[in-house]
């Protein structure tokens, strides 16, 4: 049993792995952070690579040739999946931030109910929508081209 009193983030990075008493939403939180870091890493490279367009057609086509091939295509699709999850889960987080879909405050009377159960449909809906977006993106990446 870990004593976390006075140490709000005693678990550090290990807290990302264990949902613990926070439940499913904790894993969405972890995924939101991992996808956010991945998107940030991609974005930094993307800014630099795409700035080659300012030097004309040859520079652009050379830069694009350097980041082509099956490995980059799969990597870019992973970025697309990260985008789909981060975007849709981000909408969920904004709604919760604004107090939409979190349910009304209730009296703490036994048997206690957790507000996470009220928020669960939104979380499930967000994951399903992100999955649909990832599948449609996958069709565009691998089938329609």
């Amino acid at each position, binding site marked *: 049993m870990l004593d976390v009193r006075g140490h709000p983030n005693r678990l550090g990075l290990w807290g990302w792995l264990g949902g613990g008493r926070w439940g499913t939403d904790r894993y969405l939180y972890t995924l939101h952070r991992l996808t956010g870091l991945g998107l940030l890493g991609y974005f930094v490279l993307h800014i*630099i690579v795409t700035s080659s367009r300012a030097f004309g057609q040859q520079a652009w086509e050379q830069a694009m040739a350097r980041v082509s091939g099956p490995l980059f295509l799969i990597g870019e699709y992973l970025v697309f999946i990260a985008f789909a999850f981060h975007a849709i889960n*981000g909408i969920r987080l904004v709604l919760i931030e604004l107090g939409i879909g979190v349910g009304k405050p209730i009296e703490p009377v036994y048997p206690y109910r957790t507000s996470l159960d009220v928020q669960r449909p939104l979380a499930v809906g967000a994951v399903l929508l992100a999955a649909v977006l990832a599948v449609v993106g996958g069709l*565009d990446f691998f089938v329609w081209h």
Partner: protein
Amino acid sequence: MRDQSLWTWHVIAGVVILVFLGLHMGVMHLDALLGLFNPEGGHPIDWGNVLARMKSGFFTVTYVVLLGAALFHGLYGLRNIVYELGPGAGLRSAVNAVLWIAGLALFAIGSWAAWAASRLATTL
């Protein structure tokens, strides 16, 4: 108070990104479905399509807006992750300085590229 307003800007930037990155992803990766802003046909990253977007004032301006919003959102998010791990005051200010420098440098590169690309496109 300062962190509260930074967080509010983080959320606002997220909504801005949702709009413009949503459009960007639609143009780049749902092109077979939507067919947006790719006048030359073929792949969205073919030079003719890239040139058409470089010529467009709308894309030049919104790329810079998206660049700024996404850099702030991403780097502030990274700062949150680092802060949550409980670094000391010295490390916190070092992280702040590095993120500021990296963010401003990347914003300078990206917005220069948007401006230079727009100028190049009008001469071609």
